[in-house]
Structure formats: C-alpha cells, structure tokens
C-alpha cells in the first residue's frame, strides 16, 4: 500500500524506532544500573561498559533490609484480592451481560461510578475505621480496600467477554433442563476461560502495583514490595543501585506477564474501551 516511497518508509520506521526506544530505554537502563556498583551509578558521563556485580541483588535479597518478606506480602495480598474479586465479579458480570432483572441499568451505572472513585477519598475513611478496630497492618484490611478498585473493573471487563457469547448457548443449556447454575458452570464459564484469565491477570497486576493504600494501611508486618522500594532511600544516603535491583525483582513478574500475555493484555485494554465506545 505504501511501497512507492522508500524515503517515507524509512522516516516512518525511524519515528516508530524512537517511540520504541523511549518506552524501553528507562527499563533497560534500570536493569544495567542494578548490576553496577554504587560508584558506577554516580559516574559522569554515565558508564555503558562496566564490571557487572551481583552484590546489589545479594544485598536486596539477603541483606539487612531484604525485600523477600515484602515480596511475600505482595503475593499474599494480591492473591487474596484477586480471588475475592473474581469470586464476586464473574457471577455479577454474567447477570449484567445476559440476564433481565429489575434495576439492571441503574446497577450497571453504579458499578461504573464506583470505578471512578479517587482512592484518596477511600483511604481516609478506611484508615479511621481500621484504626478503631485494630485492622491496620493486616492482610484483611488491605484486601478489603483492594476490592474497591478491582471489583468494578473486573465486572466490566467480564461483561464484555460474556457479551461476545452467542445466545443460543444458554438456550440449549436450558432446554437440556440443566439448572441455570449448572448451565453457567458447565456450559458458559468454559466459553469465557480466556476472558477470566485476562481479567485475573489484570486484577493481579493492579493489586501487585498498588502503592497508596499499601503505604497508609500497611505497616511493619504487611508491607508490600512497592512500599519496600523505599528501604534503600534515606535522607543521608540513597543506594540507587540497590533501589534498581529491588525494582527489577519486584517488577520481574509483571514484566514477564506483560510480555508473554501481551496479546491478551492489548485485547483486555481494547475490549473494554472499544466495545464500551459503541455501547450505551
């Protein structure tokens, strides 16, 4: 289609290349930094070739302020939040997408509105309430507040997957005199496996990356890894190579998920936005 002008193709490729470099470069630079000594980090001009060291990773994993307990905190709270989110979101999304019931439109809008809430508006009442009942620095407190952003999101994402299914499927299942719940479980849900997987990934990523709730409602016991990034930053001295190593370890799972589930993530982003654009 555009083969006639080689100069134009080169220019296009150049622009795309710059875009690519700008997005990838800070991450690669972070990766390089995590293998530098603290001295090399501060060198000017920045050094490209240096003797790589694993000391930062050793320190971050086994040193005095190891982030291993923090990785564990993140894993526990993200898993709990993802489990409960999916438990409530999948049935609700099915009802919203496929069934008729009174107040359906209003309830759909309500879910949408809860997705728009600014987190700072929630963190204040949660802090006050959890403080009264001794719920600060607990997994249950953090899991509960994570539901506030993941549940509305998961419901709407799952709605878009349920809406893609043909109606005949339910009719067939119902004529079969299978109960509605059985039909949902054995016939419908297997059809939206992909959607459930993508939604689970999204919810987990968002929980893993969360920071504001974690920094306020967490503490010494429950301290997700996003908060632990600050372990190596202090007023006197910041150990940037350690920060970079910690960040690489903390972000390794999400980067891997991002790369391998790339196609699905794009679909997840677009399904909600593109389809949502046509509807309602």
């Amino acid at each position, binding site marked *: 289609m555009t083969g006639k002008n080689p100069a134009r193709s080169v220019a296009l*490729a150049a622009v*795309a290349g710059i*875009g690519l470099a*700008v*997005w990838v470069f*800070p*991450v690669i630079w*972070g990766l390089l*930094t995590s293998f530098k000594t603290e001295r090399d*980090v501060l*060198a*000017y001009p*920045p050094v490209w070739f240096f003797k790589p060291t694993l000391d930062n990773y050793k320190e971050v994993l086994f040193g005095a302020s190891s982030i291993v307990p923090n990785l564990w905190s993140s894993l526990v709270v993200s898993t709990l939040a993802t489990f409960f989110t999916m438990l*409530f979101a999948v*049935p*609700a999304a*099915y*009802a919203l997408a496929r*069934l*008729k*019931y*009174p107040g359906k439109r209003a*309830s759909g809008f*309500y*879910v949408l*509105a*809860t997705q*728009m*809430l*600014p*987190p*700072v*508006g*929630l963190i*204040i*009442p949660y802090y*006050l*309430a959890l403080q009264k009942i001794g719920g600060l620095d607990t997994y249950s407190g953090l899991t509960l*507040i994570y539901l*506030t952003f993941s*549940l509305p999101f998961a419901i709407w994402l799952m709605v878009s997957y349920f809406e893609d299914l043909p109606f005949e499927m339910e009719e067939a299942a119902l004529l079969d005199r299978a109960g*509605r*719940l059985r039909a949902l479980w054995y016939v419908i849900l297997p059809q939206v496996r992909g959607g459930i997987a993508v939604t689970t990934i999204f919810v987990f990523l968002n929980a*893993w*990356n969360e*920071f*504001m709730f974690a920094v306020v409602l967490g503490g010494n016991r429950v301290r997700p890894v*996003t908060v632990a*990034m600050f372990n190596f930053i202090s007023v006197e001295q910041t150990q940037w190579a350690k920060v*970079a190593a910690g960040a690489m370890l903390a*972000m390794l799972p*999400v980067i891997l*998920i*991002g790369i391998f589930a790339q196609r699905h*993530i*794009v679909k997840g*982003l*677009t399904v909600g*936005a593109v389809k949502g*654009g046509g509807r309602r």
Partner: protein
Amino acid sequence: MSGTKPERSPQLSLLAQERRFALLLFVPALLVLLLTTTVPLVYLGWNSLHKLDLSMPWLSGFTGLGNYAKMGSDPRFWNSLVLTGIYTGTTVVLQVVIGLSLALLVLQIPKGQGILRVAAILPIVLAPVVVGLFWRTLVLAPDFGLVDLVTRSLGLGSHNWLGDPQLALLSVIAIHTWQWTPFAFLVLLATLATLPPDVYEAARLDRAGAWQRFWHITLPLIRPAVVMVVILRMMTALSAFAAIFAATGGGPGSATEILNLYAYRTSFTELNLGYGASLAMVLLSITLAISYLMFRLRRVRA
C-alpha cells in the same frame, strides 16, 4: 416440557426464574461494593464535617461546613486546584495526540508492529511508584541522569529537573505522559485496525487529501474510542499519586502538589484528617462531575 406446572404460562415463570437467578448472582457483588465503597464515602463525608486533627486530638469536634469554608482562604488549596487542571489537561492531551499520531504512523508500517506493541506494554505494567523512582534517579537526576547528559551535551547546561519548581511540574507531566501514552496508542491502534478499508478507497478516488481524510473520515469513526480513552486517562490523571510521590513527593514546596497529593499530605503527613477528608470530597465531586459530563457528551454526539 413435562414440568410440574405446565398449564401456567411457562413464559412468565421462566422470566421470574431468570430474574431470581440474576439477583442471586448480582446481589453479592452489589453488597460488597456498597460495603467497601459507598459506606466508606458516607463516612468520608461525615468526617469532612468534623475538625479531626490527630496532632491536636483535643480540638476534635463537629464543625459543620467549617472545613469547606477554610478552603476559600487557603492558597495551597487553590494552588493544588490549578495544578490539577494543568496536570490533567496537559497529560491527557499529550497522551491522545502522541498516541493517536503514533498509531496512525505505525499502521502504515508493514512489519514490526508486534515489537512496538510489546514495547508499549512495558510502561503500562510497571508500578507507578517504580516509574517515579526510575525517572527520579536514572533519567532526571542532575549530574548523572540521562536527560541531564543530553542537555549538557547540547550545551543547555545541567538542571535540577525535580528540584526547580517550574521544571519539576514539567518533569512529573513528562513521567505521567511516558507511562500512559502507550495505553492510548494501543487502544487507538486496535480501533484503527478495525476500520473498513473501502471508506478510504472511496475518499482517495474523491481526491481527498490525507489531512481531510483523517479529519472527515477517520476521526468521526474512531470518536467513541477517543472519548473513552480521554475519560479513562482523565480518571488516572486526577488520581495520580505514586509516581509523583516517588519523584518529588509533591514538592519542591508545593510545586507538584495536585489536589490528590494535597489531600494525602494533609491527612497522613500533617495528620489533619478532617480537612483532608473535605479536600478528598472536593476531588470526588470533580471526578464524578467530569465523568458524568463525559458520558453525557458521548451519548449525545456518538
């Protein structure tokens, strides 16, 4: 069907059955949402009517609209409001303009779209707090950051990108735009890819120029997706927190303190939760008002 009550209109009972089933599935999630979002917001509203300063607990008590009245003469509040407007406006416009331009360009590249998509995923999946820290150290730090290296080699000198009040605002806007432009890019690229090619053929026969084609054909077709991107990006910008917190902490002074950060700092740094709650109520109202307006706009024009 050989059910027990075949005579009574089966249609109706089927409908009633469906309704019961739907409620059974939806009500649990509804209850969770009410309990985790709406009840806390009522509590937030109630607290915004109180003086509640954990550093001076003995002064606590009901103050009616006192906190809201205080905002009128609080320069830091007005400053944060202006910054919120600048921050949200510039980041959203930049994301959509850059994202859309890049998507239009990339669409014409026959090969290598896959690599670009993977690259675009990278900023999106990173935790904003990590993004803020990365930029603060590796990119924007004076003396050893990458941006500083570039400006120095261009003879523009070394700058304190996060320490100088004006540059700091620019820097946090750049960070936010860096992280979220890929979202606009990916969504718009996918939307553009679904457009029927025959519209373009017709336009080409009409000798419409590239710009005209974009303005009169492409843009109206992708309009719903653009509006959706704008809504979602605005919500993210209005509640931006972790990246700014990590990069500047809202400073220097209050140079990058958008309303969201001001509400946070008031509540959890200065421990004035009553006033913080009222600031959060203002942000909440702004957010809901904007999303309501945008949805109206979309329904009317789309």
